[in-house]
């Protein structure tokens, strides 16, 4: 007897990547012993990332699922997702196994990675090192494609990404683009985030994002993947915290205060929430000296991507808590200030749309958004709208990322 499992969120090498969003999968008898249907049990096996199953698209899964597979090979559908709170720590550290009901032998197995963005202070050492190595490789001492990323966020381009309601959508696409590039180097990698309303001393160490000396020069452990960091022809990173790194930066809104922006449930409005662009976002940037404090130079410091990971996580959490992922809900987004192109729901976003007609910038570095091996969304030229429902709560294809503390919930 042979059972075939088909879980569509797999890469070309057949490795399955899951988030909290249920993926519709199928099992079928590829070779039956006789004409009778066979009862099988799906179960997760894990040394890290755990999976759950359901017969409908729901956030309430079970660790085991019984299926009856017809002898004629007809596919039987089920849903599989990562168990909220139990992400992977390494590639392929989970699996979906199929056993004949009541029997011990595994008749089919697919290795699985529950790939989730994590709080940087909670990553394992190997997770941290894989992220840093992928980033160092992608930048390749200033000669790699990372250049496109900081050139997307320089003077003359900032009206595409800042000061308007599309601020959060644009940066969600930006992070996703970079994360996919890093995953092309190492598929186990996700972008971590810096929870800037909490102390994160382990982040500002020589082994992670570097330690600053009295001049604001950042240094790393010998051999660190970012030791030879170079951007725009300038070697190294400058950054000094204007606060003790054993504490959180002062004056920033806490997570709870940020989630409260836009008003309480059930009337919370995006138009109020996006005021977070100043505080905590702007103040998190300017809590430091160095590259990170200036809008036009900030992406040249890798900290930018962890800071914005948290900004995006806060949006994701606000969306989840207030159920604001449906673009048709007028409270899930807001009209663009001055009707600015690039900030309206149906607009495509620069530079991925390659639109260089005024008022867009004259060049569009980086080309289209990097494709994913595990999802079709949002396509090469994302719209503002396509960024809202990243976990596909309303159906369709998810964007392929999730945060460790923001569940999928229908």
């Amino acid at each position, binding site marked *: 007897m042979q059972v075939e499992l088909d879980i569509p969120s797999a890469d070309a090498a057949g490795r399955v990547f899951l988030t909290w969003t249920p993926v519709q999968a199928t099992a079928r008898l590829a070779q039956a012993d006789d004409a009778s249907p066979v009862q099988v049990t799906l179960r997760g096996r894990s040394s890290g990332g755990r999976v759950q199953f359901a017969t409908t698209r729901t956030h309430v899964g079970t660790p085991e699922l019984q299926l009856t597979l017809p002898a004629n090979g007809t596919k039987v559908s089920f849903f599989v997702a990562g168990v*909220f709170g139990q992400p992977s720590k390494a590639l392929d550290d989970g699996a979906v196994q199929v056993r004949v009901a009541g029997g011990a032998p595994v008749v089919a197995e697919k290795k699985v990675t529950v790939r989730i963005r994590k709080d940087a202070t909670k990553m394992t050492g190997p997770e941290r090192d894989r992220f840093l190595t992928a980033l160092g490789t992608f930048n390749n001492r200033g000669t790699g494609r990372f250049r496109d990323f900081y050139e997307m966020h320089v003077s003359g381009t900032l009206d595409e990404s800042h000061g308007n309601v599309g601020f959060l959508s644009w940066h969600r696409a930006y992070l996703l683009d970079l994360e996919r590039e890093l995953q092309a180097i190492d598929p186990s990698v996700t972008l971590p985030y810096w929870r800037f309303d909490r102390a994160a001393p382990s982040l500002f160490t020589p082994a992670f994002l570097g330690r600053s000396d009295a001049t604001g*020069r950042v240094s790393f*452990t010998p*051999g660190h*993947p970012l030791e*030879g960091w170079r951007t725009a022809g300038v070697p190294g990173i400058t950054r000094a915290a204007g606060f003790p790194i054993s504490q959180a930066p002062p004056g920033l809104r806490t997570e709870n205060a940020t989630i409260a922006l836009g008003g309480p449930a059930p009337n919370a409005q995006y138009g109020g929430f996006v005021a977070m662009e100043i505080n905590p976002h*702007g103040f998190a940037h300017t809590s430091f000296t160095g590259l990170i404090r200036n809008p036009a130079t900030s992406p040249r410091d890798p900290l930018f991507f962890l800071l914005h990971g948290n900004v995006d996580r806060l949006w994701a959490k606000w969306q989840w808590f207030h159920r604001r992922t449906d673009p048709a809900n007028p409270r899930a987004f807001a009209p663009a200030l001055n009707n600015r192109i690039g900030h309206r729901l149906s607009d495509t976003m620069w530079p991925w749309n390659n639109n260089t007609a005024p008022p867009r910038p004259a060049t569009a570095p980086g080309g289209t958004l990097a494709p994913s091996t595990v999802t079709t969304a949002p396509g090469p030229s994302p719209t503002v709208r396509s960024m809202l429902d990243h976990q596909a709560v309303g159906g369709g294809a998810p964007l392929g990322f999730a945060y460790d503390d923001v*569940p999928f919930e229908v």
Partner: protein
Amino acid sequence: MPAIDVDEYRNRYEQELERTRTQSTRTKGARSYTDGEPGDFIAVDDARDDLGPRVAQLLAVATDRDRKIDDRLDALQALSALEFLGARFSPYRAEWVSTLRTLAEDPRATVRRSALEQLALRQDPHARELLLTGLDKPASALVPDAVALQFLGHDGHGDAVPAARKVYRRSKGAAREEALRILATDPGSAAMLERLMKDKSEKSSVRRISAAALQDLDPSRFEKAARRVVADDDDFNEIRSTSLTGLALRRTAESAPDDALVQTVTKLHSSSRSPAVKASASRFLAATRDRSET
């Protein structure tokens, strides 16, 4: 971490937010230089919002030499944060830059330094002039040499190379190291950087900066020197780790390592007691494996 029931998680989070809301309905702003929180008045959904009064207030605080230094620095921080608003801040940018130029010569060192850095990050010619003058005439320097070179280094066009050479010769410590970073853009410095990278009597930090600089300036020269350092069991772990990672992250086809180097690194990986060397050797071997698989 145990699995979390999503419905229960929502209930708990709702209660937590409710507790926060009843305890305090607003957070404190960036310390107490104004009545309100700087971000509070930014409501992006309201096109009538005018940043003008707030910017004027913050500029006044930043330039008021009678104010407490913390207030002035907080005002500078708040103005920098407002700059992240892009077009909404544009009407005030010229005044902001003009204020920074004034503050670059403020009597308070922390204000000067903050203003000069913000100008240097935007490659402001006035700030460049002030910084170069300070390096040339230390008595009139607005910031220490190391800081001046660091700020000048934000402009990667090499204008500061002559000044960096001068500082390199006359300084020790951080200023000398910042000078080396600037000399990384100077082809005429390659031989010196190679010598420093290989010099066992030099400080570890100087050797590592020189290695990074040489890698940018003359990759093949770096590779030759790095191979020598990696193979030298009498050399220090720090520079061996730096050299190994430099070799590992070079992913171009022409830099594919030969068998002899792979054998050296494999041996080093198993014999070294240094975690940094081991980590760098692992990285090198993994990169080599990846290259041979693609």
